[in-house]
């Protein structure tokens, strides 16, 4: 019986310890609403085990995304080059950095990033993981040109951020790693999945004859053959997130993936962008060389240029392209515009 008494006392002691632990605020899990088509057709989104989505983390990430405090001279936020009304891209061919310098690539739109399964981000795949991608433009001299030490010092001395980090991550000591985690959490919540074509696939909308023919052009290997790289009704991301040389140039001033991998066979390869929200994401291609969708379609129809690394899927490069009729070009454009998601660019959850 004596032992039993000791056991009970010991148990009370343990319980009192755990009640102290309960005083630490535990952030609330964020329920990422996965669109029905994504749930039906795709594997689950990539959420790193060491950075689960929480309500506090997402809210903090959103605040940081729109805060100029992350740039060197506090003149730019992430949203400077990733505007919601432009599907989180930039209408300018090259965005102006914090010091007034222009980059050499068009700002990539931001949505459905959690479904980039291989986690290679940016046009050239230089960043593995969204957390790493978040930091890159912050410290890039021609973009936000920040110094991570200086930025975290600012955040640590801020009157609100330490408390917000405490709530989101259980510590008020702010590091670059936690900044990346918070912004990445917010970016994973940026989802676009309510275009006319999505509703068509769900049986809630009908296509016009032109849109329907445009979809057939898109899916036909004899015509557009777009589906091999840009998804389909069964891959509603409308990108394969892979790297291709799509015949833009005979020689390269920008090596793309090749500059990252060091493999000459990768020269001129860039990541396929999603075809969602093209209405808002002009100009097009990695260097924003095309202002209109007509120019893009004409490129694939007649404008392909041969180089050694051209993707074999650019099958008719020796003829200049797939040679679409004017009617098919118009219809293809009509179909592409059905991937426009007006609700997305007006979603209050993504507004500052």
């Amino acid at each position: 019986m004596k032992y039993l008494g000791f056991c009970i006392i010991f148990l009370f002691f343990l319980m009192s310890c755990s009640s102290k632990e309960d005083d630490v605020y535990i952030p609330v899990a964020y329920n990422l609403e996965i669109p029905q088509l994504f749930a039906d057709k795709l594997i689950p989104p990539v959420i790193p085990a060491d950075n689960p989505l929480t309500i506090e983390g997402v809210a903090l990430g959103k605040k940081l995304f729109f805060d100029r405090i992350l740039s060197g001279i506090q003149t730019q936020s992430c949203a400077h080059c990733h505007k919601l009304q432009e599907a989180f891209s930039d209408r300018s061919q090259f965005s102006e950095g914090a010091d007034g310098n222009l980059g050499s690539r068009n700002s990539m739109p931001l949505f459905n990033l959690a479904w980039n399964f291989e986690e290679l981000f940016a046009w050239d795949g230089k960043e593995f993981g969204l957390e790493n991608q978040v930091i890159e433009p912050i410290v890039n001299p021609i973009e936000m040109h920040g110094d991570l030490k200086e930025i975290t010092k600012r955040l640590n001395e801020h009157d609100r951020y330490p408390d917000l980090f405490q709530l989101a991550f259980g510590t008020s000591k702010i590091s670059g790693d936690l900044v990346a985690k918070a912004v990445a959490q917010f970016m994973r919540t940026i989802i676009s999945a309510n275009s006319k074509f999505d509703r068509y696939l769900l049986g809630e909308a009908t296509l016009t004859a032109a849109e329907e023919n445009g979809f057939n052009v898109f899916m036909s290997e004899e015509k557009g053959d777009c589906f091999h790289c840009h998804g389909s009704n069964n891959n509603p991301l409308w990108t394969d997130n892979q790297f291709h040389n799509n015949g833009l140039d005979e020689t390269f001033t920008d090596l793309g993936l090749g500059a990252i991998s060091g493999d000459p066979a990768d020269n001129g390869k860039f990541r396929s962008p999603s075809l969602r929200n093209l209405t808002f994401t002009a100009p097009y291609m990695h260097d924003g060389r095309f202002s209109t969708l007509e120019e893009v379609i004409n490129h694939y129809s007649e404008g392909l240029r041969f180089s050694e690394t051209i993707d074999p899927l650019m099958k008719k490069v020796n003829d200049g392209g797939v040679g679409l009729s004017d009617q098919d070009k118009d219809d293809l454009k009509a179909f592409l515009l059905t991937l426009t998601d007006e609700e997305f660019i007006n979603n209050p959850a993504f507004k500052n």
Partner: protein
Amino acid sequence: MKKPFYFFFFLLIVLSCKDETECCVNPTIAIKLKFTHHWDGVELSSSDFNEFKFRTANDDLISISRLRYLVSNVLFNNTIQSSSTIYSLIDIDENKTTLLVTGVPISKVNAFAFTFGFRDEDNLDGAYADLNSASFNVPEMLGGGYHYMQFDGKYKDSNNADANFNYHAIRAADITDPDNIILQDTSFEVDLGNIEITENTTIEIKMNVAEWFKNPNIWNLNELNTVLMPNFDAQILMNENGQSVFSLGKITSN
């Protein structure tokens, strides 16, 4: 104190009975299938990609930039072993070349086989999230379902200029009349015969990539290079050439 003792003793007996049922009456093991690739005996890996270093039976010089294909319906003694082995996408470039088959009974295996591609009953349009996510689908206008293989590269054409090929194997579809598509299952079973397996066995399955171009049909890339998916006759030729592509390699136990 006696009662708890009896209880634990009884529990021990129950647990040991359960063990007997699960592990010893119908013992099963996991087998690893490892797909390797060669060109008429010369080892081939992704490091060989994008170089003109292979010559087909038709004397076409080619470079390979992508080779991925579907294997399904792995059978030991004519029985599919578990749901985990329904299919797997083998991708040389991504170094996804192994498939773990669980639930294989420890017994003499006198029939080991798998299907290249999907049989019609498994080739369900949009049904497999991982294959959708890998953009391995076939357009509905060609009957839907999935590619069996995407094999892309370049060849030197009759003018010695670079030209592209997309050797894409799918279920053959005659779309002469789009309202009445005629489909033919061109997947095929690869029968690798008798094998001895023990625990931790790895079975090597070798693909001779050169065979796609030579046996029984000598493949002329100047004639058959791209837009082969809607080409019914080309799909039949691929099916015929595929029959001799695979062979059994080493069987090892760790």
